[in-house]
């Protein structure tokens, strides 16, 4: 066995995808559309969110093209406003929020805890249908003319001053919100009630902890967004005045209701990604995660603190100075658990035995970019600097660093990591490593200049800007074209691998999770007998004993 890789594949001459697996158990469109198998639902989600990702990405391309020149050149200001609004709505609600939970979470959470399925499989399917209905409404909105309020639906702009399709978008997000709530609800019940014997809380993989924390946020936070959107729709249709100062209402009430969800939403988006990073770093350094308890609790801490910082989006909106003090202080507190995780992951590498397959490359990308993104969040959480930096491109850069540099990289790390288990085939290693590096380089070139633009004062959501900002915008657009290639490549080679990828076998990464102890792709019922958990999480010593007891017939060193 070559020392430079841990990849452990079955003999390519004799290896076969197992005949009976969740993909082949039943055939026909209805068996997919009426499935209650969490793995099939995860697959349906994977296809849907990829579709929406590319729509959101195309819109991003349009934004960057427009911003190549200081004047509005490509499209009218109104169109630009619609483009960035839909980009935000689609990327947040139709890609980022469901990304890891609805795909990797749905697929692997039950397997990781030794269950046959989630607690409520039909609700899981309902979740997907709600997502699809919401998605159709969003597409419908785009076709009939779009909405231009910004994804934040600030009142009174969204209630009285635009005549675009606020209601259909609001309803689409409302429905997508319920999709999210049901997923989170399912996860919480499953984790509490369906763990295999011996699977205590502190033997759970950290991916499970992360999704648990995110699920708490989904379940408690999303309903508040729902009611905020209902109020906007009512105000728009009936004209009640709850956000209208002329009638005694208060537009700031909407801000509080909106951000009460939308801040936890960012933790909904990032926590599952952090869960992926824990799994990947552990596997590719052959070590248990350093400080397991700290990482587990930090996920819950982020969830709890995350509910108490929402008004840091409102520091200059006229809330009292004392409110600013409180929220700024709490924001400092919520920053700490993320720092704890970064250091624990770093020290997981210490005295490990590290190989650099693609998932780990994406994980490294995550660590670097999320560190920058998270630190710039502190710039914004500190009230004094927020005055200058808020509402500028600094914010745009900050959230793209954490969401795209962080979350999207974690998602790609997870997709690559679990691809062999999901499909039974390996992705091609060399080109995927190239794609990871291309993505990283493209990302930095796209978004780092935006920090500078923000510090210079360039406001966000501007279709035209002063000419001295052009150079940095040109760099940013150039980077975006590279980034686009970085995202296109995985789609291409992953689809290629479905037919031509090397057969993966049960455990190509020699990982310790329960999901790796079954066939690839898994059976519909996951396990043929109830697994019993008698070892700690990330127990590589146990894995070695397993492997000695059941040696693979012949190992092949590398794939593709």
């Amino acid at each position: 066995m070559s020392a430079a890789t841990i990849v452990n594949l079955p003999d390519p001459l004799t290896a076969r995808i197992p005949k009976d697996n969740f993909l082949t158990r039943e055939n026909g469109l209805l068996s997919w559309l009426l499935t209650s198998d969490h793995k099939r639902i995860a697959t349906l989600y994977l296809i849907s969110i990829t579709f929406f990702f590319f729509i959101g990405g195309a819109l991003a391309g349009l934004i960057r093209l427009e911003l190549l020149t200081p004047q509005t050149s490509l499209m009218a200001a109104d169109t630009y406003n619609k483009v960035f609004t839909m980009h935000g709505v689609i990327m947040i609600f139709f890609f980022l929020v469901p990304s890891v939970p609805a795909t990797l979470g749905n697929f692997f959470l039950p397997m990781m805890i030794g269950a046959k399925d989630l607690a409520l499989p039909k609700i899981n399917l309902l979740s997907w249908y709600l997502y699809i209905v919401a998605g159709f409404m969003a597409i419908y909105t785009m076709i009939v003319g779009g909405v231009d309020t910004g994804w934040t639906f600030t009142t009174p702009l969204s209630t009285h001053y635009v005549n675009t399709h606020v209601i259909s978008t609001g309803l689409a997000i409302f429905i997508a919100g319920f999709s999210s709530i049901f997923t989170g609800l399912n996860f919480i019940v499953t984790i509490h009630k369906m763990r295999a014997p011996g699977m205590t809380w502190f033997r759970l993989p950290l991916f499970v902890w992360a999704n648990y924390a995110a699920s708490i946020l989904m379940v408690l936070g999303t309903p508040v967004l729902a009611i905020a959107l209902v109020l906007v729709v009512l105000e728009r249709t009936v004209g009640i005045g709850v956000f209208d100062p002329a009638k005694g209402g208060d537009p700031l009430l909407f801000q509080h209701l909106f951000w009460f969800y939308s801040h936890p939403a960012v933790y909904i988006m990032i926590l599952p990604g952090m869960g992926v990073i824990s799994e990947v770093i552990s596997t590719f350094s052959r070590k248990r995660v350093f400080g397991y308890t700290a990482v587990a609790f930090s996920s819950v801490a982020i969830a709890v603190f995350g509910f108490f910082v929402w008004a840091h989006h409102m520091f200059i909106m006229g809330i009292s100075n004392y409110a600013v003090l409180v929220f700024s202080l709490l924001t400092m507190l919520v920053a700490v658990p993320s720092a704890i995780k970064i250091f624990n992951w770093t020290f997981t590498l210490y005295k490990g035995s590290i190989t650099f397959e693609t998932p780990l490359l994406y994980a490294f990308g995550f660590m670097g970019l999320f560190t920058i993104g998270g630190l710039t969040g502190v710039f914004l959480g500190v009230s004094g600097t927020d005055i200058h930096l808020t509402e500028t491109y600094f914010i745009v850069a900050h959230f793209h660093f954490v969401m795209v540099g962080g979350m999207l990289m974690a998602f790609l790390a997870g997709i690559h990591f679990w691809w062999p288990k999901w499909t039974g085939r390996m992705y091609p290693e060399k080109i995927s490593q190239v794609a990871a590096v291309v993505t990283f380089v493209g990302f930095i070139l796209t978004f780092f200049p935006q920090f500078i633009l923000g510090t210079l004062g360039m406001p966000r959501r501007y279709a035209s800007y002063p000419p001295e900002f052009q150079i940095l915008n040109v760099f940013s657009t150039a980077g975006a074209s590279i980034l686009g290639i970085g995202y296109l490549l995985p789609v291409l080679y992953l689809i290629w691998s479905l037919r031509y990828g090397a057969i993966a076998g049960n455990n190509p990464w020699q990982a310790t999770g329960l999901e790796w102890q079954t066939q690839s792709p898994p059976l519909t019922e996951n396990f043929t007998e109830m697994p019993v958990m008698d070892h700690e999480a990330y127990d590589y010593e146990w894995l070695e004993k397993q492997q000695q007891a059941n040696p693979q017939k012949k190992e092949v060193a590398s794939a593709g």
Partner: protein
Amino acid sequence: MDHISPVLWQFLDKWLTNFALFPPEASKIAPQMDALYFFMVLVSLVGLTIVVLLVVSFSILYRRSRHPQAVQIEGSTLLEATWTIIPLGLFLVMFVWGALIYFRVFTPPANAMNIYVVGKQWMWKAEHPGGQHEINALHVPLGVPVQLTLISQDVFHSFSIPAFRVKREAIPGRYTTVWFEATKTGTYHLFCTQYCGTNHSLMVGEVTVLTPEEYKAWLASSTSGNSLAQDGERLFASLSCAACHNARPDARGPSLAGVYGSRLTLSNGQTVTADDAYLREAILNPSQHITQGYAPIMPTYQGQVSEEGVIELVEYIKHLDSNYRVDQTLNTTGFLPENENGKPPAATPPPATPKEAKP
């Protein structure tokens, strides 16, 4: 020189003269905020470097070909405590430092001169007390604390002067304030930074800082004739506010002379300071701002006075220190062109409501 095409040369020229990495520091608070900003940049660089160095060196030292057997380590409470306490400590330092700056920016000095700014889709209107009106521009004197009182006529806007490091939301329905003291003459960008619809990107302008002499000259040359307070006096008369708010012993409303800045006790027992926000609310939602001892009969002027009108009235009341002229105008209200038949106009337009009964 003839090898470089004119287009490329223009491009380079633009770049060299216009490219900047950092905005100019043109206000008193700017260097203070920048100090904190650079401290945070430094801390971030150090933090990032530490993480990157650790990841890179661990990757090299412990790569599989060099370190084939991993050592299972559970963790280290000491390390956990270290990397919890040190970041927390640094963040708390930044928090305190930033809070001080924040309070400084939003606590204007008592001697600040006030300029009103009304934001509307898609322009900024600055109203100087002397009656100068500017659109998408703001002229301010050097070295003088200037307070901006902001309000929006429609949606949220945000008034931003990056060179001064100040920014404040202009909200419909209430005043917000921010202050600065310019320290460098010149012109600087003014942006609207809260998305406000179609021409959000066009709601930009220039802030011009003038030396005190230049500023005086500018004031003299740009005034429309009447100061805001004078316009307010006229509005006060035409709306017949003086009918109740005068110095007569049987006056139905409290005298407004000297009311600005005083402590008032309201009919519900609350005590409030009669600042700009209070005056505005008292005009638009009077029934909740009735001074103790007076009947709740003041009609609302919501819908009858624009935000500029309210500003003029507030300015007028701010400078009102005697009722002499108020009492005088009582006799002239009827002669104003706005009023016909010598009768003051009806205060509110409810369609067919009987007159409110006097309690």
